[in-house]
């Protein structure tokens, strides 16, 4: 009963694994084999300590992610959005930020959160259902997770307009980075953010992690040309970086952020990467993609290539790798413990923080719920969930 429509774009190719992006497009400083390459525009110089520290971050954020997946499987989290495969894009860009720069994440930027210094337990609160986020964005200059696709791109642009108004530009100035996915590029809000940023020349970097999939939809449902080209339609530069190359992500983001700080306006960075896991723990990617694709991307693993580089160039030995693994286990345990120890919120906290100013009708609702709940006080313990009572 399938109908073929004339004049459609060439048939979609998501049964074939997306090949590597064509060479001239892709900015790369470290090959999948761990070979350091050089790019005239991105003369990145890293000390051994810096490379090791990047490696450590990559390993640690992957470990936190694994722990969270395990916690979800054990019923301790409601859901988890894994960053597996995107560690380099997140750590590379996250480490490119200065302390005064502001980052606006989606729901998957656990690696960036780590680089900003946010306690991973705070992320788990959200996925456990204890809060909707609840951290103070100003504490680490890391905004709350945003779940509505694309909405945060406008917040970030407005924030960048605030930096302009504060006179906080210049060599030592501030800039904003905002994260979003390949699917998000189709949302009106994201395109409006491009317009605003371009028209106001706002100090902002649009960091798109193209992980090839928006849940089950391959990239060709969102665009028929590479995403980084989108920027040129709005009049600012766009470029594509190997999203599995932490060096390249660092160098490219650093440069774009500095340009933004210095008043040169927005840049779109497309980090070409791959979502190695399911969309979230409730997703089943075997329904829509072939394992061959996954296999081909495994060869480009963002952590393995740094390890190879460290080994090849004799910068690190087994004891270093063992120490990082041990630290990862420690962090994993800490995260797990923090998760298990999280108290459930007080039911009456439903009414907290709705308004800054007093709100009489709401206080009345709070009092009513309090009275209602206390009417059960002498009965058996409250039911475990709304459906637990028959």
């Amino acid at each position: 009963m399938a109908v073929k429509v004339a004049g459609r774009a060439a048939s979609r190719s998501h049964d074939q694994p997306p090949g590597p992006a064509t060479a001239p497009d892709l900015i790369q400083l470290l090959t999948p084999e761990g070979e350091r390459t050089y790019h005239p525009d991105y003369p990145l110089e890293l000390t051994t300590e810096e490379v090791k520290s990047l490696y450590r971050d990559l390993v640690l954020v992957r470990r936190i992610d694994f722990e969270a997946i395990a916690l979800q499987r054990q019923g301790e989290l409601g859901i988890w959005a894994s960053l597996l495969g995107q560690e380099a894009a997140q750590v590379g860009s996250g480490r490119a930020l200065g302390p005064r720069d502001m980052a606006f994440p989606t729901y998957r930027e656990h690696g960036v959160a780590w680089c900003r210094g946010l306690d991973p337990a705070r992320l788990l609160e959200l996925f456990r259902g204890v809060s909707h986020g609840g951290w103070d964005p100003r504490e680490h200059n890391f905004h709350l997770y945003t779940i509505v696709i694309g909405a945060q791109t406008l917040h970030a642009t407005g924030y960048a307009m605030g930096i302009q108004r504060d006179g906080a530009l210049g060599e030592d100035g501030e800039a904003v980075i905002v994260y979003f996915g390949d699917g998000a590029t189709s949302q009106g809000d994201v395109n409006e953010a491009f317009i605003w940023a371009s028209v106001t020349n706002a100090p902002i970097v649009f960091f798109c992690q193209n992980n090839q999939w928006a849940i089950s939809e391959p990239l060709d449902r969102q665009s028929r040309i590479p995403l980084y080209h989108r920027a040129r339609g709005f009049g600012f530069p766009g470029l594509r970086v190997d999203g599995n190359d932490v060096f390249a992500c660092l160098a490219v983001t650093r440069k774009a952020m500095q340009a933004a700080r210095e008043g040169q306006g927005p840049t779109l960075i497309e980090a070409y990467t791959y979502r190695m896991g399911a969309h979230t723990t409730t997703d089943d990617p075997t329904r829509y993609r072939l394992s061959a694709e996954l296999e081909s991307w495994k060869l480009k693993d963002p952590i393995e290539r740094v390890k190879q580089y460290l080994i090849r160039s004799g910068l690190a030995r087994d004891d270093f790798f063992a120490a990082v693994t041990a630290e990862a286990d420690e962090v994993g345990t800490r995260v797990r413990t923090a998760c298990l120890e999280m108290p459930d919120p007080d039911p009456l906290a439903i009414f907290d923080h709705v308004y800054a100013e007093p709100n009489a009708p709401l206080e009345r609702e709070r009092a009513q719920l309090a009275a209602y709940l206390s009417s059960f006080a002498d009965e058996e313990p409250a039911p475990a969930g709304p459906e637990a009572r028959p």
Partner: protein
Amino acid sequence: MTVLTLSKALNEGLRKAMESDPKVLIMGEDVGKLGGVFRVTDGLQKDFGEDRVIDTPLAESGIVGTAIGLALRGYRPVCEIQFDGFVFPAFDQIVSQLAKMRYRSLGKVRLPVVVRIPFGGGIGAVEHHSESPEVMFVHTGGLRVVACGDPADGYAMIQQAIACDDPVIFFEPKRRYWDRTEVDLPGGLATALPLDRSRTLLPGTDVTVLCYGPMVRTCLEAAAAAREDGTSIEVIDLRSLAPLDAEAIYESVRRTGRCVVVHEAPVTAGLGAEIAARVSQECFYHLEAPVLRVGGFSTPYPPARMEEHYLPDLDRVLDAVDRSLAY
């Protein structure tokens, strides 16, 4: 009779509609190979092709806006909004275009578009995945708004909604997707209750309880518990939220003299307000107690570990029934 989950019953209803009318299309995010995050469109792309089951770009305004264009060309698109909280980017297209184009054209344009929205809480989800925005559409003239409460209704109502020449906002109680009941698959729609009619699920004499969507099961359970205590609750599933089957409601309330409306949406300016206002007026001399409303609080939807206290449950329905009886 076949026993089906609500998700599967909707799937069968969609399949039947697509089989009987080649103009019926399905469009939305992940409706194709994945079959939708709740599997309501499972297998349909495989059987009807990518041109009739369309995985769209990730943009809800685009989904509803292009569906309007397809309807102008003679198609009958069924849009899936992945979760309730994501209907808002499409809000403008729904209230300013979908709802108004027939009026604007003095009846020359018809827009048989169905917008399916899994709605409500109780699944332990993160923010924006548990909303109940139905009253905003009820307030918007030009839309029909319905909610199915069980698989049998889901199967019939989705087909009726697709056959309807008006735009229909079709709410599906997401936490009931895996509930099962018997569904009369071969049975034609001819014998089905019209789409704009409520259904009395349980007759009763003491209190009329009005509900829809996810609260239907909750209220039936409450009625069963109340019966043990000797209270006879009449449970009416509204099904059609716009237009309301008002006469049926009045008839019941005039008999019982008491009315409780239950929904998950915030009580403040929720659909219960409209019902309470109408019933208070039309049954003024029959009411033994004010119409009481049970619903969400006037807050954003809380984190999952608090939702059991936010959502109306059996106890809160019974509490309201008791309060009504105490007048």
